[in-house]
Each structure stands twice: as C-alpha cells, then as structure tokens.
C-alpha cells in the first residue's frame, strides 16, 4: 500500500516538474478595476483581452471597492501586487503626491480630448470613465406616476414603499440636499448638518444600505425595496436584460475614475503601455458600448453608436441634469464625514 502511495507521489512530482519546464511564460500584469459585474466584464473585453494578445502579456483582472487605506498600506509596506489601479477622482487628488508612480509614457494630445469640466491626462494618471449614480425604481410599484428625482425619493406619501440607499455619505448627502430644492451648482461646500437632518426624515423608510452595485438591482427586482440610487451601468444592463427597472437622470451624481500606477509596481513599463492602450478612443468607445458608462474622452464618445450614446452619463442631455461629485471637497472632508455617518447610522 505504501509502495503504491509512494509511486503515485513520484508520478505527480515528475509530472509537475515536466509541465513546469514547458513554453516560456508571458509577463503578468495585474489590473485592478473599481466594481465588478458588467463593468469589469466590459474592461476585460475592451482593454485587457486585446492588450493581452497584442502585447503577449497575461493580464489578471482584480476587483476592488476603492478602499484607499488598503492601497496606502500596500505602498507603505512595499508589498504591491497590483500594477494598474482604477481610483476615484477624490482618491486621485489625495494620492498623487505620495502613492502613485509618475507615468513614463504620455497620452498623445491628438487622441485624447477631455470632456467638459475634466482635466487632461497628467504625470500621475489618466481620466478613464464617468460613472453615474442615478435614481432607480421598480416599474411595477409605480404604475400611475413614476419618480422623477430625489424630491420624489423623499416623498414617501406620493411614492410609498421601502427604499435603499448607498452605505456611503459621498453622493448620498448630495441627494438629500437636492431633495430639499438645493440647485446642483450650489451644492458645494456641502451643508452637512442640513443633509443629515434630511436623512433623518427618510431613514425609517430605508430598508437596505447597500455596499455593492449588484445589491440595489437585486433588491428592486425581488421587491425588497421599490426605489434606490444605483449605478447607471448596472441599471442599463438590467434594462437590456428586459428586467422591469426604470431610472431617471435627474440629479444623477457623476464621478470620474482615473488609471494610476501604484508606487512599488513591479511592471511599471508594461503598466504604462496598458494605460496608453486603454486610453485609445476606439478601446474606450468599445467599453462604453458594452457598459454605458461615459468615456472621459470626447473622441471616444463620438465613436459610440447613437442609441447607446443617449444612455451615457456624458450625453449632453444627461450631463445637463446631473452634477459632478466635487473631488476636492470630498478629499478634504471624507474621513470626518464618514465617521459622523457611522455614528449617525448607529443612533
């Protein structure tokens, strides 16, 4: 019995050793995107797979929840397994001096024309995509009249039913202020006290505080809640699948993501190549077509088919009724406001 066991072990070891000496391996690049689901799939199809075959690189896609502390710890400890990371605009402002590797390749000006109110690519990062948090609702719950903005979300008499909110003060405080009639161009600096007072009013009707983009969609589909802010790309995918969820662009919160290379990446040159590749208008247009998020590059928007362009956060009609999250304000206030948020939620 022992002999048989030893023979089997020997065969396994021999087989492993032989297969290990096979063809030379491609270099590996770890690309980290913010949020999974249909969004990550679109990045794989538009950027990672084509880059992998054209540059003979193994690209490993990784999802993160934009936990800035995690990235900070990695860089400080010198143990950085990531090469390219998608960060939010507020994180880009906070980390550009200390956490990010300067880019060694620049994006040609001829191929990148930034969307209005968007900065051009710089030494530390390249604007990638505008994603939007819009007001979604379960269509069958509102057959007579459908909610048209945050004022309706707060109006529990006209639009009854349990709600969900994003478990994050960023954008949620803005939605509260919009519900009380504050104009989008007068949101910042945020009146935090007033926003929390308005949240007090809606809190008894909030059944779910979601942390992941799939949660609000599934909660609306199962009828657990009837209304929730949700990421526009997820709702677009849900609509394409024929599911009965509607959404409105009124008061939508737009946030910009950047591609960066964390300090300590082991593949800086390849990571630069990837960022240049992913900033090409054709590649950006392909991603936008798949997920309906708005490329930060006007040249890419022009390449998106007309019917999908209407669903992008950067479409002029949608852009006009939405607002951009002020990354400067949030980079200075996010910690204190989040601490207050945690205390408020535990009251």
């Amino acid at each position, binding site marked *: 019995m022992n002999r048989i066991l030893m023979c089997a072990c020997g065969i396994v070891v021999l087989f492993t050793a032989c297969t290990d000496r096979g063809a030379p391996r491609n270099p590996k690049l770890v690309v980290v995107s913010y949020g999974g689901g249909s969004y990550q799939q679109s990045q794989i199809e538009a950027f990672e797979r084509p880059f992998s075959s054209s540059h003979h690189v193994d690209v490993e896609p990784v999802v993160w929840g934009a*936990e*800035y*502390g*995690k*990235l*900070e*710890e990695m860089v400080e400890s010198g143990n950085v397994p990531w090469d390219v990371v998608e960060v939010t605009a507020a994180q880009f402002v906070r980390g550009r001096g200390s956490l990010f590797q300067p880019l060694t390749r620049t994006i040609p000006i001829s191929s990148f024309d930034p969307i209005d109110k968007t900065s051009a690519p710089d030494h530390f990062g390249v604007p990638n995509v505008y994603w939007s948090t819009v007001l979604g609702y379960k269509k069958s719950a509102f057959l007579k009249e459908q909610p048209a903005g945050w004022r309706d979300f707060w109006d529990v008499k006209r639009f009854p039913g349990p709600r*969900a909110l994003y*478990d994050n003060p960023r954008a949620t405080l803005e939605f509260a202020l919009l519900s009380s009639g504050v104009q989008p161009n007068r949101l910042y600096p945020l009146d935090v006290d007033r926003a929390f007072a308005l949240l007090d009013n809606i809190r008894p009707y*909030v*059944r*779910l*505080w*979601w*942390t992941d983009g799939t949660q609000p969609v*599934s*909660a609306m*589909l*199962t*009828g*657990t809640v009837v209304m929730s802010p949700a990421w526009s790309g997820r709702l677009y995918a849900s609509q394409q699948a024929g599911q009965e969820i509607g959404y409105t662009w009124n008061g939508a919160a737009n946030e910009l993501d950047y591609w960066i290379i964390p300090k300590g990446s082991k593949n800086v040159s390849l990571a630069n190549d990837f960022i240049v590749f992913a900033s090409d208008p054709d590649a950006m247009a392909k991603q936008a077509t798949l997920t309906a998020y708005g490329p930060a590059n006007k040249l890419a928007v022009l390449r998106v088919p007309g019917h999908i362009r209407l669903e992008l956060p950067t479409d002029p009609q949608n852009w006009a009724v939405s607002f951009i999250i002020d990354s400067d304000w949030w980079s200075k206030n*996010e*910690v*204190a406001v*989040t*601490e207050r948020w*945690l*205390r408020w*939620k*535990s*009251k």
Partner: protein
Amino acid sequence: MRKLAKLVVSTAAWGLIVSVGLFYVVPLIIWCISLARGSAGAHSPGVDVFALYWSLIGQTITLSVAAALAAVICGSATALVAVSGHGRTRELLTAAMTVPLLMGFIARNYAWVGLLSQFAGETRVLFLSSLSRALLYKQLGIVVVMGTVFVPFCYFMVLQELTGLSPVPLQAARTMGASDATIFWRIILPSIRGSQRNAFMLSVVLGVGYFITPQLIGGGNFQFVGNGVLVLLDRFGLTVDASLLGLLLFLTVMVPVGLTGLAIYLKKRQKKQEQLKVVRKQESLDTAAPAQAD
C-alpha cells in the same frame, strides 16, 4: 516510558505558551505601547474614536448577547432531545449541528440573504414572505443567523455535561416520586448551568467581533464595532484610530471576562478554605474524642 511521556507533555505545554506569547501577547503589548506613543501609524484629527466607540458598542453588545442567549436556549434544548432520544436521533442531531460550522461566513450569509429575499419577491406563500419581512435587514435576522452559528458550541458543551451526568440522583428523585418537571428544574438544569454559562460567554466573545453578518443580514442598518474598524482601516488607512477602536473592543470583552474569572477563582478558593476548615475541625474532634474516652 513515563519519563518520555512527561517530557512530551511538558514540551507541548511550553510550545503552546511560547506560541501564545509570540503570536498574541507580544504583538498586543507592542501595539499598546506604540498606540500610547502615537507612533503606530496614520491618525486623523477629524475622527473621534471614543464617540464612534460609544455609538457602536451598544448594538454590538445587545445583539451579541441576544444571539448567545438564543443559542444557549436552542443548543440546550437540542442536547436534551439528543440525550433522551435513540442513538440514531443523537447521530442525526450531531450531524445537523456541525453543518453551520462547516459553512464559510460569506456562503452562510449569502445563503440567508438569497433565501429571504427570494421569499419576499417570488414566493407568494404567506408564511414565507412574513418570515422574510421579519428577518431580512432586521435586528431579529442578525440574532437568528448569529444564533445558528453559536448553537453548535452550546449543543456540544451541554451534551458532554448531560452524557456525564450520574443516573443516581435521577433514579433517587424518581423513587421519591418527583415529577419530570421537578427533575428537570431541580437536577438537570443546575447540572448543565456551568456548561451553559461557558457556551454563553464563548458565544458573546465571538459575537462582538462579528462584522460581515451585521452588514449583510442587517442590510447596513445595524453596525458592530468591527464595521467601524473596517471602515477606518480599509477605506482610509487610519491605523491608529482603527487600532484604538479595536483595543477598546478588546477591553470591553476582556475586563468583564477577567473579572468573572477572578470572581469564580475567589469563590472556589473560599469554598476550598471552608472545606479545609471543616476537615481540620473534624480531625481535631476525631483526635480529641479518643483522648476523652481514655
């Protein structure tokens, strides 16, 4: 042979002590010192850790205690059924009790969320949808899910106590005409009280460290201290604030546990001393009696 066994046992014991020292106590001491010096890492002046702690600790303790109580009641009841049933019943119950321990945290929580939200959306059976309304994203849901995880600890502890219970007092009580209820209240319950107390304390200690279950089952409506630690550490990298919050939770658990342990130790010592006094008194009486007889 006996010497060898002694050597093995003492080596194992010292190994355990050294491991505990290296992996738990030493880092804890270093952590406390660096916290006191304020050199443990990033800290934000905008975060009031003590205010955050006070706002989170109430829910953490209340829900953990509720879940532990539920587990003690269910675990004890199941152990009683297992002891009074046939061999097959006990095997089946023991197998069922190990299932919650075998499932990972995420799988367990998502299974519950999936189950309950399906009831809410698709199923039109009245009982199931009202179950969902009562449990999903509610405090009761957190207590039930945490309770199911703790039930096995209580079950196995109580079962061990019950199987080791001497049949003599039970038979004596029956002979004297005591009813089943009297036997349960007067003999069985006092016998398993110790294991119930241990199971309860173990469950509470485990429960206060939870954060995934409150987030997923509670739908973010109820937060534990662990959720606060995670936000400070993961989202903002505030290691000092997160460590301080963690240390406060650690003290919240360790101070009562330590005091309870000390109280039990002192009570036992007092009892032992009293017993010793009685024995000595008896001995002195025994020695005095023959002398008087002489």
